[in-house]
C-alpha cells in the first residue's frame, strides 16, 4: 500500500523533474538553441494542455455516467483543427504581425485598442478560469487521497480532512512558484516561454502514456474487449437517448469554441507559436493525439463499472481500477498522469491570465498614477514583472478559494462545461473581428456584455443555487417571482437541457447584440484601421498603421521608454536595427512615424496594445490620425479586391467579345466570299447573253451575203438574249432587295388558294405552248393567311413554270395540290420531269443554282428564281423545300402559317 509520504515524495520528485526540464530548456534557448521553437511536435504537444485532469479523470466518469457523450469534448477541437484550420492560421498570423499577447489583447486591438474591451475579456477570462483551476486542485487532492489514503472514501471528501496540510494548498504554492520562475522570468518579446512549453510538452506525453497504460492493462486483464463489453455493458454505455441530440451538438460546439477561446489555448496556439508552419503539423497531429486519449476511455469505464462496487466514484476509475487489481505502480503512474494534466493546465492558465491582468488591468491603472510616469526613474520592466507575479498569486488564490467554497460539488464535468460556456462568449467578437470589417467596438462590448449576463443568469447562478437561498428562490420561481424569468426556462423555454438552454440564449443574444451594435454605431478612425489590418491580414495590405498615423517624438524619450519596457539590451538592439534599416550608420534612428509604430508594437508585445498606446502617447508630440488616409487604406484594399473582380469580369467580357468578333469575322469572311462568288456568278451570267448579243450583232454587221432567214434567226437570238439579260437584272435587283429587307409589300389577310389560281392562270400560255397538262387539286377546307398575293403567286409561278419548262416526259404533267394541316397551308407542285438529279437541296435554293440550268439550256431562266422564291416564303414565315426528287419526277412544297 502506497503511503501519503511516498506519493508526496514521488510527486515532488516529478515536479523537480519539471523544474529541471524547464530550467534547461530556458537555458538552451537563451544560448541560441532553437530546438524547442523549431519543433512542430513540441508545439502540438503543448496544445494538448487542452486535456486537463477533467479530461484525464472526468472523461471516464462521463463515459460511465452518460455513455458516448464524452466524445463531444474531443470532437469539437478535432473539427476545428481538421476543418477550420484557416481560422487558426489567421489567428496565428494576426498574432505574429501585431505581437498579440493574449486573447484580450487580440480583441481589444481589433476594436481600436480599446482597453474597456480588454478589461471585459480579462475579467470574463478570470471568472471562467477560476472554477477550472479549482477543478484541477480538486482533482489533484482527490486523486492524492485515493492513491495514498486507501481509506475507501472514494468520494474524496477532503474538506473535513484535518490530518495535515491540504494538498491543494501545496499544489497551488508549487504551481505558483513554477509559473513565477519560468513564466515571468523575463519579458521576452512575443511572450514566449520555451522552458514552460518544453515542460508542458513533456507532461502531455506523460498523461497520454499513463492513460494508454491503464487502458492496455484493463484490456489485457479482462482478456480482450469482448469480455469487457458483454451485451449488457454495451447497452448501458452505448445506447443512450441523448446521443446526437441537442446537447450533443451544443457540447461539440462548446469544445470547438474552447479550443479557440480558452485563454490557455490561445496562449499555446497563438502566442507561443514560433512558426506558422507548425500549425500544419498540429492540424493532423493534435487530432491524432486526441484520438489516442479517447481510445481507452470506454474500456476503463466498463472495467470500473464491472469490477468496482456500486457507488464508487467513476471520476476516479483511472486510479481505482488499477488499485483494485493491486497494481499500485500503475495507479501511481496514473496519478502522475493526472497530476501532469492538472499542473500543465494551471501553469499555462496562470501565465495567460497573468499577462491579461497585468497588461489590461494593473498597468493601465499604474500608468495613470503620476508618480510612475515616464520621467520618473522607476523601471517599468520590473514593474511589469512584479505585476505579473502578483497576478499569478492572485489567480491561484482565487482558485484555491473557489475550491474551498465548492468542495461539495461532485461532478468535475459540470464545472468544466460552465467555464467552457463562459469563454464561448468571446467567440462572436473574435470571429466578427477576423471576418467582418464593419464590426465595431460598441457592438463587441454590447455582445460580450449581453452574452455574459445571460451566461451568469442561466448557467452560473443555477449551479451555485441551493435550496432555500435567494438564488434557489430565483431558480425555482424566477427573478422577482416572474415565471417568465426562471433562469433555466427563460421566456417559457422549457424542456431543454439547462446547458443547451443557456448556450442558445447567451450566444443568440451575444451575436444579435454584436450585429445590431455594429450596424448602429460608427467605427472610430483607429478602429477602422485595425479592422482593415486584421480582416485583410493575408492580403498585401497597402501599408501598416504608420501610413495613417502621423506623429513625432524625441528619440531620447523613445529610447528611455523602450529601455524601461523592453530592457536596455533589447531596446538598443531595436534602435540599432531600425537605424540600419533607415540607412543610418550612427545607430540612431530617426523618430519617424514608422519607427514609432514599430516600437509601439514591440512594447505592445510586452504590455498589450492598449497600454503600449498609452505609453507611446506620453512621449509622442503632435499625433494626428489622418482619417482620410485610413479611409483610403481601407478603401484601397476594398478597391484592390473590387478592381481585380472588375478586371476578371472585364477579361471575361473581353473573351466573350473576342469570341463574338471571331464569329462575326468568320461570318463576314464567309459573306465576303459569298459576295465575291455572287459577283463572279452575276458577271458570268451577264456575260453569256452579252456574248451572244455582241457576236451575233457583229456577224450581222460583217456578213454581206447572209441569207435573210439566217439574219432573222440571228436577230431573234439577239432579241431573246436581251430579254434574258433584262430579266436577269430584274431578278438580281429583286433578290438583293429581298435579302437586304428593303422590300416592303402590302400584307393582307387572304385565301392562299387564290394565289395558286392566279399563278396557274399565268402559266397557262406556257403550258399550252409546251403541251404540258396542268391540274389543280385545291384544299377542301379554306384557310386564311397573312401575306402578299402577288408575291405568293410569284413563288408558285416560278415553281409551275420550272416544272413545265424542264419537263421532258413524253406525257408531261404538273399537278398543284393544296391542303391544310397542322396549322399550315401546304401546296405541292409535282411534275413527272427529270428530277433535280444529284443537286443538294440547299444548293438548289442558292443563287444561280446550277444543275437545273443544264436542262434549261437555251430556255429563259436566270438561276435566281428558286432563291427568290425561298426568300419570299421565308419572309411570309413559311418554308419552301424540295420534298421529292427522282427520275420519275419531283415535288416542291410550300407551307405557310395559317392565321386565326
Amino acid at each position: 500500500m502506497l503511503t501519503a509520504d511516498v506519493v508526496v515524495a514521488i510527486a515532488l520528485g516529478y515536479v523537480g523533474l519539471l523544474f529541471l526540464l524547464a530550467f534547461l530548456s530556458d537555458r538552451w534557448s537563451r544560448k541560441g538553441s532553437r530546438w524547442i521553437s523549431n519543433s512542430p511536435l513540441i508545439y502540438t504537444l503543448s496544445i494538448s494542455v487542452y486535456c486537463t485532469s477533467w479530461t484525464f479523470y472526468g472523461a471516464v466518469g462521463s463515459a460511465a455516467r452518460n455513455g458516448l457523450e464524452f466524445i463531444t469534448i474531443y470532437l469539437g477541437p478535432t473539427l476545428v483543427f481538421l476543418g477550420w484550420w484557416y481560422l487558426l492560421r489567421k489567428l496565428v498570423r494576426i498574432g505574429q504581425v501585431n505581437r498579440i499577447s493574449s486573447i484580450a489583447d487580440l480583441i481589444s486591438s481589433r476594436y481600436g485598442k480599446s482597453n474597456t474591451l480588454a478589461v471585459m475579456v480579462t475579467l470574463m477570462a478570470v471568472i471562467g478560469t477560476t472554477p477550472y483551476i479549482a477543478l484541477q486542485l480538486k482533482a489533484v487532492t482527490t486523486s492524492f487521497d485515493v492513491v495514498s489514503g486507501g481509506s475507501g472514501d472514494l468520494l474524496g471528501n477532503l474538506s473535513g480532512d484535518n490530518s495535515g496540510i491540504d494538498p491543494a494548498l501545496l499544489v497551488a504554492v508549487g504551481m505558483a512558484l513554477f509559473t513565477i520562475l519560468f513564466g515571468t522570468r523575463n519579458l521576452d518579446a512575443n511572450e514566449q516561454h520555451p522552458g514552460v512549453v518544453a515542460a508542458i510538452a513533456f507532461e502531455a506525453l506523460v498523461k497520454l502514456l499513463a492513460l494508454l497504460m491503464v487502458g492496455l492493462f484493463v484490456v489485457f486483464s479482462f482478456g480482450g474487449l469482448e469480455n469487457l463489453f458483454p451485451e449488457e455493458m454495451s447497452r448501458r454505455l452505448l445506447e443512450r437517448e441523448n446521443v446526437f441530440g441537442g446537447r450533443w451538438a451544443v457540447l461539440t460546439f462548446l469544445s470547438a469554441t474552447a479550443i479557440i477561446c480558452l485563454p490557455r489555448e490561445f496562449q499555446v496556439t497563438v502566442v507561443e507559436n514560433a512558426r506558422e508552419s507548425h500549425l500544419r503539423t498540429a492540424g493532423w497531429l493534435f487530432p491524432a493525439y486526441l484520438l489516442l486519449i479517447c481510445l481507452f476511455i470506454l474500456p476503463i469505464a466498463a472495467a470500473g463499472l464491472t469490477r468496482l462496487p456500486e457507488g464508487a466514484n467513476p471520476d476516479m476509475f483511472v486510479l481505482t481500477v488499477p488499485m483494485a487489481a493491486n497494481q499500485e505502480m500503475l495507479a501511481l503512474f496514473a496519478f502522475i498522469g493526472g497530476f501532469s494534466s492538472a499542473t500543465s493546465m494551471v501553469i499555462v492558465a496562470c501565465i495567460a491570465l497573468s499577462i491579461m491582468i497585468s497588461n489590461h488591468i494593473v498597468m493601465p491603472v499604474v500608468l495613470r498614477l503620476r508618480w510612475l510616469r515616464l520621467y520618473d526613474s522607476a523601471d517599468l520592466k520590473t514593474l511589469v514583472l512584479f505585476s505579473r507575479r502578483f497576478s499569478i498569486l492572485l489567480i491561484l488564490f482565487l482558485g484555491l478559494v473557489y475550491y474551498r467554497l465548492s468542495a461539495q460539488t461532485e461532478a468535475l464535468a459540470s464545472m468544466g462545461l460552465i467555464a467552457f460556456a463562459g469563454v464561448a462568449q468571446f467567440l462572436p467578437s473574435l470571429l466578427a473581428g477576423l471576418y467582418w470589417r464593419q464590426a465595431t467596438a460598441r457592438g463587441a462590448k454590447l455582445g460580450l456584455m449581453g452574452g455574459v449576463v445571460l451566461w451568469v443568469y442561466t448557467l452560473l447562478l443555477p449551479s451555485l443555487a441551493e435550496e432555500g437561498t435567494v438564488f434557489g428562490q430565483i431558480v425555482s420561481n424566477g427573478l422577482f417571482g416572474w415565471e417568465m424569468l426562471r433562469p433555466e426556462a427563460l421566456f417559457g423555454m422549457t424542456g431543454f437541457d439547462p446547458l443547451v438552454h443557456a448556450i442558445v440564449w447567451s450566444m443568440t443574444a451575444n451575436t444579435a447584440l454584436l450585429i445590431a451594435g455594429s450596424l448602429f454605431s460608427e467605427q472610430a478612425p483607429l478602429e477602422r484601421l485595425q479592422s482593415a489590418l486584421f480582416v485583410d491580414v493575408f492580403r498585401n495590405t497597402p501599408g501598416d498603421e504608420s501610413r495613417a498615423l502621423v506623429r513625432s517624438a524625441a528619440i531620447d524619450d523613445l529610447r528611455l521608454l523602450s529601455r524601461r519596457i523592453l530592457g536596455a539590451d533589447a531596446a538598443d538592439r531595436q534602435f540599432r536595427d531600425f537605424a540600419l534599416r533607415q540607412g543610418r550608420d550612427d545607430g540612431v534612428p530617426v523618430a519617424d512615424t514608422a519607427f514609432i509604430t514599430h516600437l509601439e508594437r514591440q512594447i505592445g508585445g510586452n504590455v498589450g496594445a492598449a497600454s503600449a498606446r498609452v505609453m507611446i502617447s506620453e512621449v509622442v508630440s503632435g499625433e494626428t490620425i489622418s482619417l482620410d488616409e485610413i479611409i483610403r487604406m481601407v478603401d484601397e484594399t476594398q478597391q484592390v479586391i473590387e478592381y481585380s473582380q472588375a478586371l476578371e469580369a472585364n477579361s471575361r467580357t473581353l473573351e466573350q467579345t473576342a469570341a463574338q468578333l471571331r464569329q462575326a469575322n468568320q461570318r463576314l469572311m464567309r459573306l465576303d466570299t459569298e459576295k465575291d462568288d455572287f459577283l463572279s456568278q452575276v458577271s458570268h451570267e451577264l456575260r453569256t447573253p452579252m456574248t451572244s448579243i455582241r457576236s451575233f450583232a457583229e456577224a450581222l454587221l460583217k456578213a454581206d451575203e447572209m441569207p435573210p432567214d439566217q439574219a432573222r434567226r440571228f436577230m431573234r437570238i439577239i432579241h431573246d438574249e436581251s430579254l434574258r439579260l433584262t430579266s436577269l437584272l430584274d431578278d438580281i435587283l429583286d433578290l438583293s432587295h429581298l435579302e437586304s429587307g428593303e422590300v416592303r409589300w402590302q400584307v393582307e389577310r387572304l385565301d392562299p388558294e387564290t394565289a395558286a389560281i392566279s399563278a396557274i392562270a399565268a402559266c397557262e400560255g406556257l403550258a399550252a405552248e409546251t403541251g404540258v397538262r396542268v391540274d389543280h387539286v385545291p384544299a377542301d377546307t379554306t384557310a386564311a393567311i397573312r401575306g402578299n398575293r402577288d408575291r405568293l403567286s410569284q413563288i408558285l409561278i416560278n415553281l409551275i413554270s420550272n416544272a413545265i419548262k424542264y419537263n421532258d416526259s413524253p406525257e408531261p404533267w404538273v399537278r398543284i395540290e393544296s391542303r391544310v394541316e397542322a396549322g399550315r397551308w401546304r401546296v405541292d407542285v409535282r411534275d413527272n420531269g427529270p428530277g433535280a438529279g444529284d443537286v443538294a437541296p440547299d444548293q438548289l435554293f442558292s443563287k444561280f443554282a446550277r444543275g437545273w440550268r443544264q436542262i434549261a439550256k437555251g430556255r429563259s431562266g436566270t438561276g435566281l428564281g428558286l432563291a427568290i422564291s425561298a426568300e419570299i416564303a421565308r419572309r411570309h414565315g413559311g418554308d419552301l423545300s424540295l420534298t421529292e426528287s427522282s427520275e420519275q419526277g419531283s415535288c416542291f412544297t410550300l407551307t405557310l402559317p395559317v392565321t386565326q
Partner: protein
Amino acid sequence: MTDSGADRSAKQILIAEDEPNIVELLTFILERAGCVTRAVTDGEAAIAEIRREAPDVLLLDLMLPKHDGYAVLKAVRGSADNAELPVVMLTAKGQERDRKVAESLGVNAFITKPFSNQDVVDQVLALAGAGAPAR
C-alpha cells in the same frame, strides 16, 4: 461538219461549249473562215471526241458540265498523243485568276466573253497554222 471529208486542207476545229447560241455562233464564224467544226456540249464528250479524232484546234469553254475546261485541258496535256494540241479557252468568268490557272496548265490562248468574232478567228487560225500539221 457537213463536207469536212471533201476539203482535206481545211482546219479541223472542235468546239466544246454548252450554250447552244454560242455554239451556233462559233460554228458560223469559223466555217466562214474556212474551217471544219465539230461541237460537243460537255467535258466528257470533249475528251472522247479528241481521243477519237484529234482536231487541229480545240475551242474550250471553261464552265462545262461533266469535267470543266481545266479538267479537259489537263487531260489533253497529259495525254500521249495530243499533248501538243493547241487549245483556245473561252470563259465568261473573266477573272485574272482564271487566266493564270489556264496559262499554268498550258493554254495557248485565253479569250474572255464577250469577244470579238475576228479575234477568235485570228487566234484559231494562227494556232491551226503553227500547230499540228494539216492533213
